[in-house]
């Protein structure tokens, strides 16, 4: 029982509240200091976590709602350790962005509060070791984004955000019903407990697992988003303010991917094995569809949006290979993609500044002229996006494909096409923005100091991961081994539930 996780969890929301009360000119500073404090705490955890021991550490467990058996249970494991640090990095980058690059937006206190709540909810979803708590944080995550988009969003924000909300809530609320049913059935008339550890001990019957697993999968696939559940994405992405979009695309999708490993596979192994190919088909379809769209759309933002669909397809594929290497790769790729996609969202905003406010590729071109440093930074991120050998993304995609080859070779072959397609859309984005003929409204200038403050730290993270991916991989292995043990047992020996019933 430690208080560390409660501090790191509630710190962002507390800082946001402080920013709301404080004078407006201080709000962004308070928000930034809060997010840097979280980052410092997260790095301390990263260093302090006992990698040799593995398992759950810094466990916090209190009864929250006694009547329902819901615990306030938090812990750090190999699965969420790196993702929590990634979250802290991205939110800090977003706070820097709003402080130095968008200092004129209205109501900074409210903005800081909402971002604080968002970070708390994301961290809560990552740390939760209680099924109901996870679902509650997962649903809560969405709420601040409603306000962030409605108040600061683009021209179609009202309808865009409604679409986003309705899409994601259908999945999330069905997941809620599934979660509650899981808890109630596992209790079997006795005292209910929603602790993941308790639930894993009493697996549900094979047929009940089916619909509950699908409810969870739907919620996660919508949130990512994954083809064909991405209907909210184009409007949603187009209307989000930049600082919000960076967080949304970088982190929220990863909570969904993490949810598969943390919740869906350990609790519903029978169903996960049964629907393995279905989910893999969705993953491969996402890779192909996302890549195809990413090299046809004209909006730079949507190139990134669709590329996210493809990248998340890889992550899901790696998880559902039910192979340790695949899942490790997926987890590493989650971090890589969060950093790279977040950074590229900021890059798009910087491109728009140099093209008279347009984010269309057809209005860009020739931006590299007079901006070599900017071009270089952008190029590094583009290479990372396309998983150039030498980057951590390459390592991750390689491991995902390796894992998939061993379990489902056909899927691996098709997914490998996606690797080539990634080079197409990433280079298309880079070349049509930075090279080609100079656009009509383009007035290029070098990376400013303020822009550098946002991009350079992210660049350093990318380079660090490229040099030493093992740092992120080593705790992951312990986490994924535990996450996959149930499904591998099912694959090896038939149903866990039946084995349990036979006892």
């Amino acid at each position, binding site marked *: 029982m430690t208080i560390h996780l409660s501090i790191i969890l509630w710190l962002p929301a507390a800082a946001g509240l402080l920013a709301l009360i404080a004078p407006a000119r201080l709000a962004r500073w308070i928000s930034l200091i809060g997010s840097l404090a979280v980052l410092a705490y997260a790095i301390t955890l990263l260093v302090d976590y006992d990698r040799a021991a593995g398992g759950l550490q810094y466990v916090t467990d209190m009864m929250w709602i006694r009547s329902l058996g819901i615990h306030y249970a938090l812990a750090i494991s190999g699965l969420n350790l790196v993702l929590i640090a990634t979250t802290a990095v991205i939110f800090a980058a977003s706070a820097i962005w709003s402080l130095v690059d968008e200092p004129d937006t209205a109501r900074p206190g409210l903005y800081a509060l909402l971002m604080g709540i968002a970070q708390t909810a994301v961290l809560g979803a990552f740390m939760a070791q209680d099924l109901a708590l996870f679902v509650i*944080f997962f*649903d809560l995550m969405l709420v601040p984004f*409603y306000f962030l988009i409605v108040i600061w969003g683009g021209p179609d924000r009202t309808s865009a*955000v409604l679409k986003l909300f*309705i899409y994601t809530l259908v999945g999330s609320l069905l997941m809620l019903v599934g979660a509650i049913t899981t808890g109630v059935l596992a209790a079997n008339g006795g005292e209910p407990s929603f602790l993941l550890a308790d639930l894993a001990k009493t697996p549900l019957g094979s047929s009940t697992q089916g619909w509950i697993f699908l409810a969870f999968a739907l919620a996660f696939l919508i949130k990512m988003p994954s083809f064909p559940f991405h209907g909210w994405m184009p409007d949603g992405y187009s209307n989000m303010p930049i600082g919000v979009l960076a967080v949304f695309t970088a982190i929220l999708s990863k909570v969904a991917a993490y949810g598969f490993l943390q919740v869906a596979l350990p609790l519903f192994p029978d169903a996960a094995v049964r629907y393995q190919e279905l989910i893999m088909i969705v993953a491969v379809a996402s890779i192909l569809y996302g890549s195809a769209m990413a090299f046809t759309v004209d909006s730079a933002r949507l190139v990134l949006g669709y590329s996210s669909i493809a990248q998340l397809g890889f992550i899901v594929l790696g998880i559902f290979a039910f192979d340790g290497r695949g899942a490790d790769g997926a987890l590493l790729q989650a971090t890589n993609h969060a950093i790279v996609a977040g950074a590229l969202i900021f890059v798009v905003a910087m491109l728009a500044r140099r093209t008279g406010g347009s984010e269309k590729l057809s209005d860009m071109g020739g931006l590299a002229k007079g901006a070599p440093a900017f071009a270089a930074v952008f190029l590094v991120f583009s290479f990372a996006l396309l998983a150039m050998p030498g980057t951590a993304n390459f390592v991750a995609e390689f491991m995902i494909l390796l894992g998939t080859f061993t379990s489902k070779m056909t899927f691996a072959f098709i997914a490998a096409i996606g690797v080539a397609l990634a080079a197409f859309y990433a280079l298309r984005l880079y070349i049509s923005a930075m090279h080609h003929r100079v656009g009509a409204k383009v007035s290029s200038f070098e990376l400013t100091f303020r822009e550098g403050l946002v991009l350079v730290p992210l660049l350093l993270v990318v380079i660090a991961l490229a040099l030493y991916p093992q740092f992120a991989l080593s705790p992951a292995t312990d986490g994924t081994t535990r996450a996959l043990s149930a499904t591998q047992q099912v694959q090896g020996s038939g149903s866990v539930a039946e084995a349990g019933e036979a006892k």
Partner: protein
Amino acid sequence: MTSLLAAAAPPAPTIDWAGLAPLVILIIGSIIVLIAGLAGPRPIRTRVVPLLTLATLAVTIASVISLWGENTQLIEGALQLDPLTLILTLLICGGAVVATLLAWRERAAEEIAHGEFFALMLLAVAGMFVLVASRSLVSTFVGLELLSLPLYILCAARVREERSLEAGLKYLIVGSVGSATVLYGFALLYGATGETGYNEIASKISSAGLATDPLVLAAVAMCTVGFAFKASLAPFHQWTPDVYEGAPTPVTAFMSIATKAAAFGVIIRLFDVALRPAIESWRPIWIGIALITMVVGNVGALRQSSMKRMLAYSSIAQAGYILVGFVIVTDLGVQAICSYLILYTFGNLAAFVVVVARERETTEGDNISALRGLGSQRPLLAAVMTLAMLSLAGIPATAGFMGKLRLIEAAAAGDYAWLAAVLVVLSVISMAYYLPVIAVMWRGEAQPGTDPATGVPALAGGAPEADGEAGSAGWELTAVGVLLSAAVIVFGIVPQPVFNLVASAARGLGFN
């Protein structure tokens, strides 16, 4: 001689006056309020009368708390004082307190005189107490009428406004049809079983094998339809939006909480106790009603520009959710219903508080445009409304979410997980009418002229809206709104006290 007398006059029923205290206090209080309302000086009418009403309600609440934990029968088995009665009475009194505060400066109370207005409200509360406590057909009907008649008048309390009169008349007609249907059902039930007490009816039905008796089935159908009218369940809900819109807003707020609680109290008792042996014949019907009600409420609320109409449909949808807790017929289900009714109250009343405030501050009435730009103009009120909408929508960390969570849990435990799934999918529709309210407040700029600071002159002419000139809302509205929205958050994070409160709700109903 004495024995002859004793034979001629039936023995007087033994009455436990302590147990009846809430009822007695409410009736005496309403008489005092009525008399005080006759006083000449205006300050007595406008200040003392509401204060007396609040005092009566406070004493009633105190008596309810002092009776907490009782489980006895009153007046020879006509009424039952059990946790369900006490919980719902507490909730109803709480709703009445808020409604009284909302009505304090309301024109409606002015128009039909303060004494009458608040005395009728107390009488309605008394009727609700009788209704939720009754365990026999006769007392149920008495309670039903004691609650309905004052409400018919209250709905029409703005006597100078056509809409209000129309609402009163509509409610009177539909309510009477509902009452008549219920009464017919009761008559058939009595005819079939020869009993009026709920427990006696239940044992008669099961011992004589009357569960599929045509008379009992007809009675079930009549009672179902009648109470569906009363509780505004689809497809018997058509009166609700008109009445909610036309009635003075404090009355609407009161109805949306108290009438609903009372109606579900009696539905639980009648069906879960008296008609339990015939469960196979009524459960499918009620499941159907639950589904239709959820769909109609959620779809109807879309694209409403009147906040009160939107809240009316929302209240229908919420009633549909509550039915999910009802049709599973379990201890947990009754607990979930009580939790939901309590937890939903805060958000719902908070929304009405803001509607009333904007009705007084702007000339837009209850139209959603009255909320435009509230976020920059009156951030506190906007925050109250925002939390209210989030709670009604059932967003995590609000009271409404915990209410839904409890319903889902009860449904899952009662083997009706599919019904819970339908509930959540349909409640997603509700995002499309709750969230735009929030968007209007926080994104739009205030319309010129709606700001009380600019001093818009009252509209000329004889339209009833002409006297609705912009004024100030009154400090008590802000205070109530802040308290309610604080409760939304507090119970959204720490719901255990509410769950403890309702833990014994089903004790008097004889489950397992």
